[in-house]
């Protein structure tokens, strides 16, 4: 033990100096190459988005005459497409917010509670593992495998349209039942991922405080409210952002539960999927403007909370 120590020490210094020397030596060629590759990759990721953005401001002739990634000239510049896109999509944005926000908040909260119950309290690990496996497998289910039963459930078994007749009597179109169904559906299918995200966080939480609180006779509910929940802030940010992006972006459930883009309750993704297609061909400028407008909320979330987003997807 004692004679090993100087040797490792010497080795460490040697490698540090070697690394320093290498750094200076290679700074020129290799690093330049590295940054060129990184920049090219960045261009690859940005060009589709950039070309979409410039195209959305182009007139019909500018689209044909200018390169797809070049900005429109002064004569080819128009805001008309954005105006049309906003006109068409604005009600969809409202509808999307109407289910995305409650579904996000509820599923994050439920996920936190579930993860707490499966992580902090002590009960047999092998049983916990079974419950956890069933929950985690739920993340990976292809939703196609539940679509037909889901349709059956909402149309034949849980007929919210009849149950909520007093709401429609207030003058709200009864298509909005689709929004309520979307909230419940997204919460149910969001529980697995939210639970997993919170569990990875709670697993690393220090036991000391919780254990001493438990020894003092605090109930599980008290431990959650006084200790775990107040410390969950950072993870709530991650989960809320992840869930919001997922729910906002999802098309499949909206397609099945709301079905038509002409419905007053149609979410933005549903309207966007059919935007700019007509008998005369495709209006690309309108499509791009619509795509950007629909992506604004998730883009804003990503730009302001990029770190949390990365953490959410990496978990």
């Amino acid at each position, binding site marked *: 033990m004692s004679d090993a120590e100087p040797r490792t020490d010497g080795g460490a210094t040697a*490698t540090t100096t*070697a690394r320093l020397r290498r750094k200076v030596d290679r700074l020129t060629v290799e690093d330049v190459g*590295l*940054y060129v590759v*990184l920049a090219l*990759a*960045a261009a690859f*990721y940005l*060009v*589709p988005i950039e*070309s979409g953005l410039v195209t959305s401001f182009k007139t019909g002739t500018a*689209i044909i005459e200018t*390169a*797809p990634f070049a900005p429109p000239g002064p004569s080819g510049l128009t805001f008309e497409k954005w105006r049309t896109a906003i006109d068409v999509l604005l009600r969809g944005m409202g509808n999307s917010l109407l289910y995305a926000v409650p579904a996000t908040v509820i599923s994050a909260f439920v996920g936190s*509670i*579930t993860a*707490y*119950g499966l992580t902090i*309290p*002590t*009960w*047999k690990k092998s049983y916990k*593992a079974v419950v956890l496996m069933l929950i*985690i*497998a*739920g993340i*990976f*289910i*292809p*939703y196609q*495998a*539940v679509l*037909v*039963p889901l349709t*059956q459930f909402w149309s*034949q078994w849980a007929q919210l349209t009849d149950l909520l007749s007093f709401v429609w009597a207030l003058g709200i179109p009864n298509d909005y039942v689709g929004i309520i169904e979307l909230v419940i*559906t997204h*919460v*149910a299918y969001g*529980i*697995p991922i939210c639970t997993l995200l919170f569990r990875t966080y709670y697993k690393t939480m220090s036991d000391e405080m919780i254990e001493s609180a438990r020894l003092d006779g605090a*109930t*599980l509910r008290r431990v959650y409210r006084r200790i775990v929940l107040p410390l969950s802030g950072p993870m709530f940010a991650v989960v809320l952002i992840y869930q919001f992006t997922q729910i906002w*972006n999802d*098309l*499949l459930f909206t*397609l099945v539960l709301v079905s038509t883009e002409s419905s007053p309750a149609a979410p933005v*993704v549903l309207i*966007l*999927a059919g*935007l*700019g297609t007509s008998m005369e061909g495709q209006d*690309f400028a309108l499509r791009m403007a619509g*795509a950007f407008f*629909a*992506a604004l909320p*998730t*883009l804003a979330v990503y730009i302001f909370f990029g770190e949390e987003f*990365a953490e959410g*997807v990496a978990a």
Partner: protein
Amino acid sequence: MLDFYRRLYRTIRPSSGDDDGEVRADGGVVSDGAAGSAAEPERDLVARIKSALDRRFGSDFIESSVFWLPPFLLMGLFVYGAVIWNLLISLTDYERFANAPDYSNLDFEMYTRALADSGFIDAAINTLILLVAFTAGTLAVGLVLAILIDRGIRFENTFRTIYLLPMSLSFVVTAQFWLWIYNYNNGIANSVIGTFGLGPVSWLGNQEIVLYAVIFALMWQFSGYAMVVYLAGLRAIPTEHYEAAKVDGASTLKMYWRVIIPQLKGATISAAVVLMVFGMKAFDFLYSLVGGYRPPNGADILATKMVREAYANLNWAYGSAIAIVLFGMALSVIGPYLVYEYRRDNL
């Protein structure tokens, strides 16, 4: 076996001291139980069941079930209940505008029909190609990006943010972008290969190419995700491993191939599973590409075929059968993965 009965016996017989000798504990129980049931039989029973459950499942089992059981049941109903229900529907002949399937006559007709349907076979093959090519390609790109970013570069955050940006966008949105890129007359794809004297290619119209064009677009969207996962894996490798390889005189390429990449096994597996699931969900992308249930010829996958059969053609039972096949495919990936994670104590 004997041990099992002994445990069972203990769980139904509350005893005051677990570690005491069996005979003494038993003796104590009989008198305790008799006294308790004489005074307050109901509370005693509840307490007895509670302590029995506690001993079987752990001390916090009952108290903690308030937290996890209701969400677990809700999720179980929507996920596993629905999958079983779906299996049941796939055995009926449910189609058209009938309100509910007729469950009295169950058979595998829909599955034999699928095997005889060339459209189904094509979609299944396309699904496999998509899953394998998309997952492998995305992992490779993600790994390269992660290694480049991990070289201690400046503006690391900026590059990472840019690479991950497409992931925050909806399939519906990215489909619009790629439709424009693949446009025959004015798209970027054709102007890029045009500079090399190639093309123009009808990316979405040519049956041989369209699937790969879609895969390329999906890789663009998700390679940032693979990068983030690999980056976390790379950061977990101690610096000494790099240095040891350097001291041994290994070239950079060799070092990554021999020393670093083998240590990324865990990251690769979890990223691959998630990517395959994303690949199976490519429905949104294909739907938005055409704005309808019929994807471009040659790009039909099981996910799109299922929804089309059920919601456009109203062949509910047939759609359910396809969904079950898709579910089976997903399960064959997820099942081993979960077992693997459980073995590594990672759940």
